[in-house]
């Protein structure tokens, strides 16, 4: 058994479009160790979402292999070891907060898996929405809706949390607060997180590993391990180290543009 959550070997995805084949990503080699916080960053269209979709078995790789916990993505998905958080919270508007968080336990043969679940009410508390259990999604702010989406993703105690620009539509203040809480949740749960963003500061703040991607064709440009510069994956947003990481990432992305 490997200790890798993901192993991508030479993965490529090509879409057939009316203008001919479009290479969304190519030559992706990536190992993600269990329990790590990995951030994918790059300009829009560089294949970040595509890569997350391959990891979660929503999309087959056209080339290469993607293995999840040493097995197939489909297997991991059926075993409900993956959770996904989308940019729009994707809450079911007719369900209350608590009922939305309960949804994953009501579908996909959850009860047959005999796995231990988190208490939905406890998850609502974890994301700081105690007292809003019975609210309907339209009664919540954008940030609160995204919190519900995170609670819903965590209720199955997933081994991996895939997040596709989950805070991309939020204002910076709300985003910073949610980033703090996401790190806290990550520490408490030990979940492997793969987080997509196009915000440099978000990447610098959250990631242990930052994967920098480039577009046309979508590919990995560089992988930066931040363990030495961020002991315990903790960093002060106003400190020198943080600005150092942010500007390094900026230089890399600029180089990606020039290339």
């Amino acid at each position, binding site marked *: 058994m490997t200790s890798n959550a993901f192993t991508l070997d030479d993965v490529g995805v090509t879409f057939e479009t009316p203008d001919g084949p479009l290479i969304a990503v190519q030559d992706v080699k990536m190992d993600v160790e269990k329990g790590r916080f990995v951030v994918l960053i790059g300009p829009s269209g560089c294949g970040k979402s595509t890569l997350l*979709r391959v990891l979660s078995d929503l999309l087959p790789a056209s080339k290469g292999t993607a293995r999840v916990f040493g097995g197939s993505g489909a297997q991991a998905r059926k075993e409900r070891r993956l959770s996904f958080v989308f940019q729009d919270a*994707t809450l079911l*508007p*007719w369900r209350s907060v608590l009922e939305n968080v309960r949804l994953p336990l009501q*579908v996909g043969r959850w009860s047959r898996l005999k796995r231990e679940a988190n208490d939905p009410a406890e998850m609502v508390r974890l994301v700081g929405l105690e007292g809003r259990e019975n609210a*309907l999604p339209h009664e919540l702010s954008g940030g609160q809706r995204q919190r519900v989406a995170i609670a819903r993703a965590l209720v199955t105690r997933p081994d991996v949390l895939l997040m596709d620009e989950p805070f991309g539509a939020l204002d910076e203040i709300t985003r910073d607060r949610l980033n703090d809480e996401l790190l806290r949740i990550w520490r408490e749960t030990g979940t492997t997180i793969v987080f997509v963003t196009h915000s440099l500061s978000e990447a610098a703040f959250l990631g242990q590993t930052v994967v920098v991607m480039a577009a046309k064709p979508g590919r990995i440009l560089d992988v930066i391990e931040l363990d030495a510069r961020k002991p315990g994956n903790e960093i002060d947003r106003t400190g020198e180290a943080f600005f150092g990481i942010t500007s390094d990432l900026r230089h890399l992305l600029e180089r990606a543009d020039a290339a």
Partner: protein
Amino acid sequence: MKNRFEWLWPVAGFVSLIVLWWGLIVVRDVPKYIAPKPGAVWASLVDNASLLLDNLWPTATAALGGFIIGNLIAVILATIFVHSARARKMYFPVVVVFNTIPIIALSPILILIFGLTLTSKMIVAAIICLFPTLVNMLRGFESVSSSELELMRVMSASRTEVFLRLRLPRSVPFLFAALKIAATSCVIGAIVSEWIGAEKGLGVLIIQTTFDYRTELLYAAIAVSSALALVLFMAVTLAERFLVRWRTN
């Protein structure tokens, strides 16, 4: 808070038109067999209450029966079509073509098959409800976003679960929009069917009073038909208010 006398506006609207109607008849000196005065219609409504009620029941039964059957079939068809692209390709065009047949032409055919029965009336009322509800339900079932479908897929939800947990609740507002149309059209269906042939019912009463120049009673029968449709419409509206509390963001 909304003004508690808000309901007075529509009442004033109706009253103003009734006064206009009354005024026109007085001014133009219209004979009462052509158009009666509002007061005479009201008197006829009261005097013939038992006759009107006697004719209301068969129509109401046909309309309500047709409403239930037609909408139920529409929902079942939409469910089948959303699950089987092939069934949809084969039979949706059939439904579209069938829908182009004027309902008034369909009635005699049904009467030939089923006779002057409640069944043929109900079928006409059902057919008239079916198409709008089918089209609306298909749209409702399909109004799910790609990220909602991906969410269900990440959770390994089955097709049945996607249908029951996502498509069906999503379609409820579309269903109610269709039911509001059906609430009035099912009464039209029942009455049209009664024109072609029936022993009893508001449609029969309307035809008879027209030919007998019992114009006041004709107007009274029309008022009762409209009241029937209105009651159905309000029942649907109330049910919707009770069942649909959510909004899309």
